[in-house]
């Protein structure tokens, strides 16, 4: 180690305790790292804030179009007056659609959960410890991202058939977990890079067990990475068409399969209506969840 590196560590050490203390107050939610009060650059209309708002507008633009069309009285892309006809169809006449939606939902939750747990733990293990198979796991960890989807789909289908695992929800879950793992792993790894190990040593020196270190020190500090990873995994899982197509079995069609197979006759505006319902549903859950989190924070 050269002098500069050491200097950095010393400086960080000086900072960390205060961070830890603030984190344990837990006043602002479960994982927020306290904003730095010293370097004030919080101008509301700074370049980066404006860019963020513009990019989010860019991301929502097609969504506005989708939502607008969901209220269109007729099919197609020309406005013919306000109507709730597609919502009526969605709620009263779309049994198959809801079944596909339910399947998608179950798969997204389970596969992202398992991928997040396995991926995060592996990232911690690989970044912080040295062991023999480290290089192997590191290499294999991002491969599923590189291989074209259609190839993953076919090869997994052949594999499942060969080992006689019946196609269905379970095989979709396995496939989704597999392609989600690299994203979680790499995101959490990026978060762990240059992580200050001295806080772990400090925790241990103060008598914390490995489990306590994991729960009280490691997990809170990598939480933004874990959260991002999980969000990304849910997104990938809800989106995937090709791999799901190949590994799905009778009765396990997901929403993308349902939608893509409408291509030949034109995608029904009922799907537009579903988008708004989905977004409102997510917002509702988020609100409820927020209350719930706040009560927990208050009681502790």
């Amino acid at each position: 180690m050269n002098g500069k590196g050491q200097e950095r560590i010393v400086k960080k050490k000086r900072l960390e305790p205060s961070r830890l203390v603030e984190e344990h107050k837990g006043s602002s939610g479960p994982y927020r790292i306290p904003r730095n009060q010293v370097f004030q650059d919080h101008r509301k209309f700074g370049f980066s804030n404006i860019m963020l708002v513009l990019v989010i507008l860019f991301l929502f633009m097609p969504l506005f179009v989708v939502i607008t069309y969901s209220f269109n009285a007729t099919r197609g892309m020309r406005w013919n007056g306000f109507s709730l006809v597609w919502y009526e169809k969605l709620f009263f006449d779309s049994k198959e659609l809801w079944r596909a939606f339910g399947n998608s939902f179950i798969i997204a939750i389970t596969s992202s959960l398992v991928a997040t747990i396995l991926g995060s733990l592996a990232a911690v293990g690989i970044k912080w410890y040295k062991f023999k198979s480290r290089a192997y796991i590191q290499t294999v960890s991002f491969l599923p991202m590189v291989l074209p989807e259609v190839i993953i789909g076919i090869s997994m289908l052949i594999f499942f058939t060969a080992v006689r695992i019946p196609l269905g929800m379970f095989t979709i879950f396995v496939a989704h977990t597999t392609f989600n793992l690299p994203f979680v792993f790499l995101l959490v790894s990026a978060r762990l890079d240059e992580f200050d190990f001295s806080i772990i040593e400090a925790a241990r020196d103060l008598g914390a067990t490995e489990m306590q270190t994991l729960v009280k020190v490691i997990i809170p500090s990598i939480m933004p990475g874990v959260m991002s990873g999980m969000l990304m995994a849910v997104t990938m899982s809800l989106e995937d068409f090709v791999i799901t197509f190949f590994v799905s079995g009778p009765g396990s069609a997901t929403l993308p399969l349902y939608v893509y197979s409408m291509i030949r006759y034109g995608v029904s505006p009922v799907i537009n209506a579903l988008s708004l319902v989905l977004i409102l549903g997510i917002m509702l859950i988020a609100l409820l969840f927020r209350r719930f989190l706040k009560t927990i924070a208050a009681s502790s």
Partner: protein
Amino acid sequence: MERKNHTRKLTAILAAALVIATLVLATGCTKSDASARGGKTLYLYNWTYYTPESVIEKFEKEFGVKVVLDYFASNEDMFAKLKAGGSGYDIVFPSQDYTSIMINQKMVHEIDHAKIPNLRYINPMILEKATYDPQMRWSVPYSSGATGIAVNKTKVSSYARDWSIFADTRLKGRMSMLDDMREVMGDALAHLGYSVNSTDPAELAAAQKLINEQWKPNLVKFDAEGFAKSFSTGEFWVVHGYAEAVFEELDESRWGEVDFFLPPEGGPMYLDSMVIPTGAKNVELAHEFINFIHRPEIYAEFLDRFHYPATVHTEAGALMTVQPFYRGEDMAAYELKYDVGEDLDKYNEIWQTIRYVN
């Protein structure tokens, strides 16, 4: 000691997470199975909406069973999946080329005619064209049709009502053709007076030349997924594709603005059939379903949904309540696209020069 304890706890957490995940998955699966009233479930593998939900519900009610639908977005996808080991479906709906391949590959069950009295309604004309299975030993026709050309009459006033419309330089940058090798090649072959199933190198080369030199320069793109959207927004004025896709995107009040026609020189047509794949678990019920579909009033309900002409069924046409988008007679000069076997490579090579090079 402490380390071991830790390992154990960690394993416990992981195990718990996996158990929860499997439980959720299991409940998700059993829920859909348990709701089958008669205990029996029929698994269909089809395009989304291709069998109207109302028809499915009637079948479920009458027979006290549950029907589960699964979807594919192209014959090729469906076949690749079945080929690699996908199974568990009771009825699959392939088009003629894949029907014949599945018959050749012994992937389908024999049809028991005694169980499907409604086979008497199948149009003999269509069976004549289905040379791979004229006796319906392995497959029962479901629906037949052809791709045609839709013209936006509010934008284009004078045009040729045949395939040469794509050579019209006045319409450059406003036209699209399907991104489908056999369809586009078949159109060009038919326009030149050849069979859409030609494997003669000279004829294929002539078709290639026609597409690359006269049609392609005028096309915006080859598009099978979004052409109907862009036709409805006015971006495209002339599109080659399925009538139902084009009209689905338009409000009925605008249907008068569209001229949809099948070029008189002929071209490729399709015939989707119902087959029972080997490995189907409900062969009996599958026969019942095929019989049910071909009841004249049920079949008319299906035709109404898509405004199809009654090309496959002899009786249902009279029971239709809507006007079909094109007439069955328009398809007189049309040929079924057959599987060309090894010669597919010739098509592939030509299609590469059309699609990969610009």
